[in-house]
């Protein structure tokens, strides 16, 4: 009997290994090893085509070079601003819309949720193409709508001051619904008794949500915050499709700069250093945010 159990346990640990190895094996070969190789390349000088064995060790000079170049510093600053602008707009909007979707007593709430969520599921490239035509200064509808309101026409993607904001608006439109769905999921976890008790105590709308909803939504908001940061810091598709970093580098972001450094200029070492810097920033920021929200 004991022997049979032992052999069962052994066979189970074999299946453990067997079930794990396809998934983990792929993650190791196509995620873990490439990260290590990127780190390795970032310490070497080499083109995209040169074999690993012929790359020349240069220590941290690639990192020094990218930070000396104003272009990468600009790209980093731009992507931070992009991320921050998205956070500032999406976080409050997703809470408000989440509350509205959850509480409003109107027909068509499900339709509203679907419509909000839909853009998140379509290719960012397609969204960028459509918004590119919406922003078109002469033939596009946005400036036409502004003119009805007697507001001046805007340069949108063609303007140094507005291009980044235009990309932010595009992203808010596309991803807001996803965060709203997360907020609604968080709201359904809050027991209704709290609100009833608060209402009996005479708490108004703001007071109820400030003292009940926000604190109890903390975990959800932490997730929204972290995912939003991770997703926005790696923005690439709309920049590549719509602006290629222009006008005057105002929409140049880290991922785009890294891509052209690798694939247009062929400088694998510099591009890998950029990738590692972004990886470090993403990891540090997400861990900091998670810790911050846990301590609240």
């Amino acid at each position, binding site marked *: 009997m004991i022997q049979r159990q032992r052999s069962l346990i052994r066979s*189970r*640990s074999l*299946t*453990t290994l067997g*079930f*794990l190895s*396809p*998934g*983990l094996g*792929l*993650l190791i070969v*196509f*995620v873990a090893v*490439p990260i290590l190789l*990127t780190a390795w*390349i970032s310490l070497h000088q080499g083109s*995209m085509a040169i074999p690993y064995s012929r790359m020349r060790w240069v220590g941290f000079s690639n990192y020094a070079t990218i930070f000396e170049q104003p272009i990468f510093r600009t790209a980093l600053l731009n992507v931070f601003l992009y991320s921050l602008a998205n956070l500032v707009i999406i976080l409050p909007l997703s809470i408000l819309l989440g509350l*509205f979707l959850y509480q*409003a*007593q*109107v027909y*068509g709430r499900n339709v509203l949720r*679907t*419509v*909000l969520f*839909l*853009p998140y599921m379509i*290719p960012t*490239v*397609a969204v960028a*193409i*459509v*918004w*590119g*035509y919406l922003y*078109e200064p002469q*033939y596009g509808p946005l400036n036409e709508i502004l*003119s009805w309101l007697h507001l001046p026409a805007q340069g949108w993607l063609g303007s140094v001051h507005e291009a980044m904001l235009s990309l932010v608006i595009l992203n808010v439109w596309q991803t807001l619904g*996803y965060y709203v*769905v*997360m907020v609604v*999921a968080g709201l359904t976890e809050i027991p*209704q008794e709290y609100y*009833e008790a608060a*209402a*009996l105590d005479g708490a108004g709308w703001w007071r109820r949500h400030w003292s009940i909803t926000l604190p109890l939504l903390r975990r959800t908001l932490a*997730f929204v915050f972290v*995912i939003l940061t*991770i997703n926005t*810091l*790696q923005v*690439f598709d709309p920049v590549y*499709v719509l602006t290629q970093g222009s006008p005057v580098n105002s929409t140049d972001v880290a*991922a785009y700069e*890294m891509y052209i450094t690798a*694939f247009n200029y062929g400088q*694998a070492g510099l591009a890998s250093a950029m*990738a*590692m810097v972004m990886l470090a920033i993403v990891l540090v920021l*997400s861990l900091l945010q998670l810790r911050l929200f846990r301590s609240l």
Partner: protein
Amino acid sequence: MSVYVKSYRRHGRARRWLSLALQYLCVALILAVMLFPFFWLLASSLKSPEDLEALPPVWWPAHPAFSSYRTVFEVTPFARAILNSLIVTVCSTTGILLTSIMAGYVFAKHQFRGKNTLFVGVLATMMVPQFVMLIPLYRMMVALHLDNTYPGLILPNLANGFGIFLMRQFIAGIPDELLEAARLDGASEWTLLWRVVVPLLRPAAAALVLFAFVFQWNNFLWPLSMVYSPEMSTVVLSLNGLRTYTSSVTFTNIVMAGTAIGILPSVLLTLWAQRYFIEGISLTGIKG
């Protein structure tokens, strides 16, 4: 929910009507903002070159023309791109489903040393931006002569941390007694997984399949780096190409027709199965 809203609001009839009117106004406003780009996409795809050049812009063409939906297949190998996207997406999705179910089952129901560390490692892969792996992956595929091929497009996308995480979350909710009963009947772990666990997993598996399908279909960075000949292009890649090569405003209808076709699978899947998407997001609170 409606109970508490009603219970404490001391409202007269007029006030209730006002609140309802305001709510519907909000709904209308949100719908207008969210649907407008879709409207413009459809309208532009049906416009003639004259409509496209008209100032002020034409909102809806007087004579909607569907010809651009045919032209897009003539100016670019769009049918081939659709086929490529389907092949790549179906293979990737199948791979993600299988690897995620097996690994998720082990993480949920097996005990072994180092399990938590390993699982944290799997979760950590979700935080890593795609472009961090890009250069070595590209070099790997070139070295294996797999660049510009289906395997090159598919291989790096056969497993992901999100899928394993999602499956683990669902399988953890299956009672152990159910598994033990099957084990006492002499079922192997393999039969157990496919006969007992997977049938209970259907909604979760549906969510994963849909997410994986949509995100592989939408993928841009990897095909952009991997593909260099038109006949290996994916739909999303072709859309970018169409837009780049048809900069004149009079070709907008063709680009928009292609875009409308390109988003159709994602739109239909989302409308058809949004329940699963929403459940997937709600259960994990996260997406990869």
